[in-house]
């Protein structure tokens, strides 16, 4: 019978990270507030994807499909920003 321990640990970690997200929002970190919030969200998403969605145990093809979705999103946002952030007005 598979253990529920990793699920319990990840759930606790997710709630702690939620606390960190909220706490960090109420502290003035200047330009770092948003990157910190996004980084914490990435860690949460990473935990959910690898443990809850079993990507840890999945074979290469499934990991590739998962990675492609994220990769596509990244280039869509980054390439669009190369336009908007260099407009100079």
């Amino acid at each position, binding site marked *: *019978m*598979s253990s*529920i321990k990793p*699920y*319990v640990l990840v*759930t606790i970690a*997710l*709630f702690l990270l*939620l606390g960190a*997200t*909220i706490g960090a*929002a*109420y*502290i*003035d*970190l200047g330009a770092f*507030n*948003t990157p910190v*919030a*996004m980084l*914490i*969200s990435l860690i*949460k*998403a990473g935990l*959910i*994807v690898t443990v*809850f*969605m079993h990507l840890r145990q*999945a*074979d290469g*093809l*499934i990991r590739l*499909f*998962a990675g*492609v*979705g*994220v990769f*596509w*999103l990244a280039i*869509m*946002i980054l390439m*669009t*920003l190369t336009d*908007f*952030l260099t407009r100079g007005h």
Partner: protein
Amino acid sequence: MLADAQAPVAHQFETAEQQRGAATLGIWLFLATEVLFFGGLFLAYTVYRLKYPEAFHEASSHTLVAFGAVNTGVLLLSSFTMVLAVRAGGIRQRTAAVGFLLVTALLGLGFLAIKGCEYAHEIQEGLLPDANFHLAGADPHLSRMFFYLYFLMTGLHALHVTIGVVLLIIFAAWAKMTARLEGLATAIDLLGLYWHFVDIVWVFLFPLIYLVSRHS
């Protein structure tokens, strides 16, 4: 996996494991299209927020952060109960599977109820960007844009939660009534992948909408 051994194998697959692998691959492909779906809105949000940070800062402060935080907790907990439902389906514990599926659905309904309260409050405050939109002391066009994005993104997400809740209830009923739970184990697993994805979308949505800058 335990569930594979007795799951019925469709004629185009050689083994149950291959069948399960194909189904899992299919759902991940679907989730990639969902990333496209939400990605467009996230991109629009990113561009507007980078161009008009003060307006988004101001508009974001009108969202109900306590409601959003509780809702995040509700969804995180629902992912936990979902993963327990998947596990129960895999080890053929019928009562546990049905129970956890229903608890997950209940948490999803809780999320929608809280979201509904927020929407009601915001509409009353005149934050729905229709003809009655007003936000004192702010640039009307830019704060409208924030709230267009807010209602669209959270609305699209809530639609996904609703679909998930409906499927959870259907699967719970199916699990209760089916003669062979192992035939359903993969389906529950795939629904779990969908549910976790919806949770991940909210995990990013919450700080972007509610926590733009709460320290000043």
